[in-house]
């Protein structure tokens, strides 16, 4: 995550090139430049759903404990499924 201490928290947004299909409790996602799909946990899926509108991580607090939400965002970021926006 590029946001850090001393910086104003950025907002997170879905990467527009990703494709996602929801499964029973999670989702399967294919990032824009990925050659293979990957599975998302229920929390990661919830974060993805919530980021239909760009939002800061603090706005996702209701989805889970802050550390867990942060890890979910980090994983989505590493997969190329979300990006930080001003």
């Amino acid at each position, binding site marked *: 995550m590029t946001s850090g201490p001393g910086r104003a928290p950025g907002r997170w947004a879905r990467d527009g090139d990703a494709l996602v299909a929801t499964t*029973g409790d999670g989702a399967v996602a294919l990032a*824009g430049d990925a050659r293979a799909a990957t599975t998302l946990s229920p929390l990661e899926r919830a974060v993805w759903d919530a980021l239909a509108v760009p939002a800061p991580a603090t706005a996702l607090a209701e989805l889970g404990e802050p550390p867990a939400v942060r890890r979910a965002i980090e994983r989505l970021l590493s997969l190329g499924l979300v990006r930080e926006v001003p």
Partner: protein
Amino acid sequence: MPTSDRLELPPGPLSEPEWFDLVQGCVAADLVGFLAAAAAAGDLVLTPGQADELAVLVAEHAGLSLLVERRAVTASSVLTAAGIDHRVVDGPARRLAYGDAALRPARRAHVLVPPARLAEARALQGPAPAGSGPRTERLVLLASLPGLAEGPAGGGAASETGGAAPLLVRLGPPAHLELAGCRVPVLSLEQQLVAAALEVAGSPVVPLARQRDVAQLALSAGLDAAAARRLAEALGLTGALAEAIALAWGTFDLADKTELSVWAQRVAGRRPHQAAERPAPAPVARKGFAQRVLRRSPAPAGVPVATTMFTSGPGMAVRAPWSTRRR
């Protein structure tokens, strides 16, 4: 109708032989997504091992489906850039009916283009990536709808004005999906319903998944039933549409009466359950295919369907109640 007459939910997990047969059958019949939905809803009790196996299967099928969608989106972008009118017939287009749920993974996508530009459109797709097999296995460019005979309604030659092919014109305007940052023209719900009905009516043995497509499309909240009927009439496919809807209603024993189902029953000239008395799908799993395995799956958005399930036996003989509520 009492739910107890229809639901024969197994009280516990299936035995391993039953589970094996069920999974094999669902894989062969493209029903893995529905099976997973049933499990997620708690309607099918699984052992932890079965749940793990199903999760892997769903991820595989959904992942492959996303790759198919990606190819369709890429192809659409290329065709748009080349100024070639086109419609995605199925694959990602089914999101109009199923939403983004991985219920109905696509193994391939068909894209309709004007006959006069079919060769150009195919050339634009380029050669298949090395080691990936023929690209046409996953993305198929067509000049006519699958099952539609060549001729004025089936695509035919380019129009006299040199514009879009007659079929694209007669289908009417497309719907658009925002996918992967692209605006993809797809067949509208009404157009998809007619196209799906055409495939069902033209096949002596209709896979369950295709019948489900017809039901899902016909029960979609956004469907304009009158427009679907008008389109079928314009294409000379009234009988096909009526037969496919009657078949789906009969197969799934749908209690929901809709304008289309009533019309289909009248046009088909028989009760829906009679329409369902077609040859059952060929056996897709080894002998002993799990019997009386039931599943529920999410109903089409906005439709008050209470229960969706199927009962499968040897050869996947199907009697599949879907709804226990009448509208």
